[in-house]
């Protein structure tokens, strides 16, 4: 069996136990720590009989382990249950909100990679000179400052003070109807609908949250790239490449960077899992209707099925992210392929 196929099959095999594990932990932890949601759905003057009825409707009347078995057996049929607060199947809720998180995540991650990797290379080849100090200083700031704070500062500068960009009200300005869903990606669907005006609006809405995500992502990427490049540049094969007459650019990018990429890819995998799991605070600040916001609301309202659904999604996402990382490893380094 080719190593790639074996790797994928092994990971797919692991998806089930991982998802079952996290959902079990979430199931019980939520019920222990988040409290009884009955109060949230009962009027203040509800009678005990009404409360009991609500508990039955919410599926909370049975003993915990019966609830758990009901939930797992439904889950095995692909049913994630109903959300208490939206009264819709959790699967539909997740599906609705997924594109917002993905679009923001892809944009932010792309900014982070496209800026972070070159900055790391620039710092490494100018080691202990001013470009290195500059990159290290800026990225230290990017790592130390909380993401939500950077987001708030950007809003304050570009919306409140300069008014160059729209306020944090989600994916489109208030009162603007989104185009019909094709991919769910606003920047694609608006173009598909032949609405460049909407495309531009969506782009401006996306600019600040994506910039925040990009800035906080580029910092660790640049630092890991720098450290890994510094090491690679001291290798014998770099000396050979120089001795054979290759230009600095070829030596750095073709010979150095390719070898320095493994730790960078690992980091990006972890960051991607984090980002696509919904940047919870960031989505809240920017009114971004993504999965992070959904999860936060679910916790807030003891919406068990919604919370569990999100956790399952996030765990699958991490398994997928690290599968992609491992596949990239094999593509980057021939020594891992065998």
């Amino acid at each position, binding site marked *: 069996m080719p190593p790639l196929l074996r790797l994928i099959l092994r990971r797919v095999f692991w998806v089930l136990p991982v998802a079952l594990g996290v959902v079990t932990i979430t199931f019980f932890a939520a019920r222990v720590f988040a409290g009884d949601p009955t109060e949230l759905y009962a009027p203040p003057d509800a009678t005990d009989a009404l409360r009991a009825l609500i508990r039955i409707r919410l599926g909370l009347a049975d003993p915990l382990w019966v609830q758990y078995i009901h939930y797992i057996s439904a889950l095995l049929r692909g049913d994630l249950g109903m959300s208490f607060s939206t009264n819709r199947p959790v699967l539909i809720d997740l599906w609705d909100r997924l594109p917002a998180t993905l679009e923001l995540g892809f944009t932010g991650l792309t900014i982070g990679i496209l800026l972070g990797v070159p900055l790391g290379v620039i710092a490494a080849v100018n080691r202990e000179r001013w470009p290195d100090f500059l990159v290290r200083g800026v990225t230290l700031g990017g790592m130390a400052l909380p993401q939500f704070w950077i987001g708030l500062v950007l809003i304050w500068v570009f919306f409140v003070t300069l008014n160059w960009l729209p306020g944090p009200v989600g994916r489109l300005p208030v009162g603007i109807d989104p185009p019909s869903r094709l991919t769910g990606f606003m920047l694609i669907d608006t173009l598909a609908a032949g609405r460049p005006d909407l495309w531009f609006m969506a782009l401006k809405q996306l600019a600040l949250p994506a910039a925040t995500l990009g800035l906080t992502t580029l910092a660790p990427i640049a630092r890991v790239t720098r450290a890994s490049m510094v090491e690679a540049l001291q290798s014998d*094969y770099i*000396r050979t490449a120089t*001795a*054979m*007459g*290759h230009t600095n650019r070829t030596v750095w990018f073709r*010979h150095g960077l*390719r070898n320095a990429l493994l730790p960078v890819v690992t980091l990006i995998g972890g960051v991607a899992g984090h980002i696509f799991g919904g940047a919870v605070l960031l989505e809240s600040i920017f009114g971004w209707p993504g999965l992070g916001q959904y999860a936060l609301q679910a916790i807030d309202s003891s919406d068990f099925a919604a919370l569990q659904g999100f956790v399952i999604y996030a765990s699958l996402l991490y398994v997928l992210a690290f599968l992609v990382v491992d596949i990239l490893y094999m593509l980057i380094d021939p*020594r891992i392929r065998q």
Partner: protein
Amino acid sequence: MTAALLSIDRLSGGFLGADGGIAPVLDAVSYDLMPGQLTAVVGETGSGKSLTALSVLGIQPPAFRRTGGRILFGGRDLLSLDAAAMRTIRGARISIVFQDARAAMNPVFTVGRQMADVFRLHHGGSARHAMDRAIEALGRVRIPEPERRARQYPHEFSGGMAQRAMIALAALICQPSLLILDEPTTGLDVTIQADIMTLIVELCRDQGLTACLITHDLGVVAETCDAVVVMHAGRVVETGSTEQIFTAPAEPYTRRLLAASQLGEPV
């Protein structure tokens, strides 16, 4: 008397310490490489023989600071060239074979690809043509199944095979006029060492190469080289023809070195 192809002229320098001072390691090193000759530079580890050779290509460790001297190649001082001018010398005019060939090749590219890249850099042409030249060069250094080998990565090569590929790259792909060999057989099995030296001598004769063999293996030197430069503690102790050095060494250090090499097996 013909002019030297490369003249190292009173090269001095040292390593920059953490305190900003320079610890001297080369003290007015001077020697000439005559065209068409295979010159050995011998000496113990730390005598400065490799450092001098790396300085010719400008690939010495970054902590090295030159304090004086010139390296004349075709009448030009290599140490005065800017980066772009130096790149026209590297590979194309002066090339080098390193000690640990498997580490000296990039682990993430196939051997053929690395050779083809260097071929295109110096000679241009299509990628396919360059790969054909790479395969041809691997065949000429007697690597069996060169087409298949060209598609393999350095870690799939044995040490001896990798060194053959490195020699093919430095001598046949680059086609330089001067080839530096920095301890090319160190770390290889004794039988393979002999094969590699035979190959090096053969290629130098065929290509009319001037070569500089840096080694501490005097046995190899006696059999293959035309001239010898003896270095010790950052200085050139003695230079002469191989015959001269082996039969009538003038300096006590040279005599000690010769005596030591006959005591045990050369390492």
